[in-house]
């Protein structure tokens, strides 16, 4: 990869690029969903795919998430590699049964005779004035469903490599794209295909006084928070981007907890039974003797997602800074 050419691109462009690489390399990779064809997707994640690969390989579907996932499962069982787009993660719920009952359980219930190597891509999260139904973060639902993998990239480079890994994976993968980061910045991304293995965290900033666990759109927020605390009081804050939520790299998470002794988890989803609770539970079950402060969660509130006040609902840098400082000062 050292001699490879690179291009500056946004996260959504990296998704698009990853899809193109996969479709060029493997004829069985298909893209389907609402408006993914000539329009190129409402966020342009599938821009140009129909033009390059034809309607056979990138196609619009009727307005039925149940159908998109339902036929995706069938295609995956019969030799294809479907990448299904759900236009907003908020609209995945009509397909919940197909995902939870069929995709997640097919290998298990058939004793491995049938499998569903499928990817479900969908933009999630707040920050675009989408209100209750264009802002949700449903990762906890899917992480609690055995048989599914859940991946959340936080930057263009990871997006391309993790999506490649998801497409190569033999099991169903939910690929949650932080829509707030779709175009927020650009990054150099290799032109050729590469894979970032699933179930490996990335340490964004190293540190040993406190660890912040985050993913997706909260990664830049937490990174900034760690930098601010470093500046303001010289504290050494580690920021870990979980990247794959299920199967979680539990060993890396626990190592970080044991090394730092103080923990803050940050996500946009509501707190109660959210993903952060699992991190806290792992800490309380396997690393309690290392804990030097309350294990904190900085999250969305336990309400539906508002609109006008969304930036008061979502964790921001200042809220993360406050939580870090409280834990440090405990």
């Amino acid at each position, binding site marked *: 990869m050292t001699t490879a050419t690179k291009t500056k691109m946004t996260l959504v462009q990296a998704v698009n690029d990853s899809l193109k690489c996969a479709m060029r390399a493997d004829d069985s990779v298909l893209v389907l969903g609402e408006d993914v064809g000539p329009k190129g997707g409402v966020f342009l994640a599938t821009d140009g795919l129909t033009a390059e690969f034809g309607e056979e390989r990138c196609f619009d579907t009727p*307005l039925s998430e149940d159908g998109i996932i339902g036929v995706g499962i069938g295609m995956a069982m019969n030799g294809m590699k479907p990448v299904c787009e759900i236009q907003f993660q908020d*609209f995945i719920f009509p397909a919940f049964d197909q995902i939870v009952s069929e995709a997640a359980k097919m290998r298990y219930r058939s004793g491995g005779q049938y499998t569903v190597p499928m990817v479900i891509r969908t933009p999630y999260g707040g920050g675009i004035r*989408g209100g209750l139904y264009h802002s949700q973060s449903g990762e906890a639902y899917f992480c609690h469903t055995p048989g599914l993998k859940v991946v959340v990239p936080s930057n263009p480079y990871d997006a391309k490599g993790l999506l490649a890994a998801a497409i190569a994976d033999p099991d169903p993968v939910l690929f949650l794209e932080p829509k707030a980061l779709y175009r927020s910045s650009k990054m150099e991304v290799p032109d050729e295909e590469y894979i970032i293995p699933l179930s490996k965290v990335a340490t964004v900033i190293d540190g040993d006084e406190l660890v912040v666990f985050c993913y997706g759109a909260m990664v830049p927020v937490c990174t900034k928070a760690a930098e601010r605390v470093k500046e303001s009081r010289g504290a050494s804050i580690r920021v870990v981007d979980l990247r794959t939520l299920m199967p979680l790299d539990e060993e890396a998470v626990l190592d970080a907890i044991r090394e730092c002794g103080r923990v803050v988890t940050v996500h946009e989803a509501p707190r109660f039974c959210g993903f952060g609770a699992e991190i806290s539970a792992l800490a309380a079950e396997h690393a309690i003797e290392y804990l030097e402060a309350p294990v904190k969660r900085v999250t969305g509130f336990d309400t539906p997602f508002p609109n006008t006040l969304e930036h008061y609902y979502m964790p*921001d840098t200042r809220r993360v800074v406050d939580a870090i400082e409280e834990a440090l000062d405990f």
Partner: protein
Amino acid sequence: MIQILDPKGNQVGTPPNVDPKVVIRMYRAMVATRQFDDRAMKLQRTGKVGFSIPNEGIEAVSAGAAAALDASKDWIAPHYRDFAMALFHGVKPQEMMDNMFGNQDDHARGRQMPVHFTFTEPIRWLSISSPLGTQVPNAVGIAMAMQKRGEDGVVLTSFGDGSTSTSGFHSGMNFAGVTQAPVVFLCQNNQYAISCPVEKQTASSSFAIKGEAYGIPGVKVDGNDVLAVYDAVKKAVDRARNGGGPTLIEALTFRMGGHSTSDDPRRYIEASVMDEWAAKDPIARFRVYLEREGILHPGDADDIQEEFAAVMKEASEVAEGKARPALETIFSDTFKDMPEHLKAQRDWCISHYSSRDESVNEKGEFPL
């Protein structure tokens, strides 16, 4: 396909027997809707609101259908592209603009995106949900409640052509067929679901025929002909009110622009198709008829348009000037009584934001 006025405004069928005052109200609702759209587009282009749903081309479907209802007992479980239903029944443009801005007077208390209206007065209007098709079984349930109490109300539910593919359409139609609940299903077939044309949506020969699958009679009308829509919906409403059961009405129309203020239809609709439908404008057609019948006098149409342009402008200025909802509204209405954990989160939130020395970064743009 039922038609009373052809695209040029010529009478090709028998107009329904309806009070000219109601006819004028339909026209006014259609013009008001178009002026609301025009204002919303300007607001979105200038970054004052994030998003709107244009109704251009669809106004006759909503106005004609709404006119068939009795606001004192009927309910509307609408599609989002139904502004004229609200305006026909006298919802104030100010209430709608307050929702566009999500300000403190918004009925949704700033929690929903623009155009997600909710009203209880002057007609019960089921709070709009973004997930498509969900209102269909909800509407049937509302009607079943009326039926069980022996009331004679009717529920009108509308939805797009794309929405017929959802499970809500399927379950709602099926339950209505079995229960014979007093519902009128109105399919606003504007031929696209965002960029997806009807032929990729379904292979059925029409949307009206989908009623067969549920034992519900189907009717197809020219959706750009407000009198035809009124006529068909009125007959269906009367039938439902008299215990005759549900009806599915397909109103064939066309979205004369993008799906939303963020969509560019030129990526997927030929210019010639746009032109063809521009010639079928439902307002222009209705105006020709009204002027010919002497219901509108020369100058009236222009006056009405100016009147609503001014109304919408003012409403938007007033809405813009209103405060945002209080922080507390993030928490209230999650449940009737706020549970302890939400009280704690609310208290934390209010104290955090009122004491912190750093403002909140509020950027964020809606892409669709």
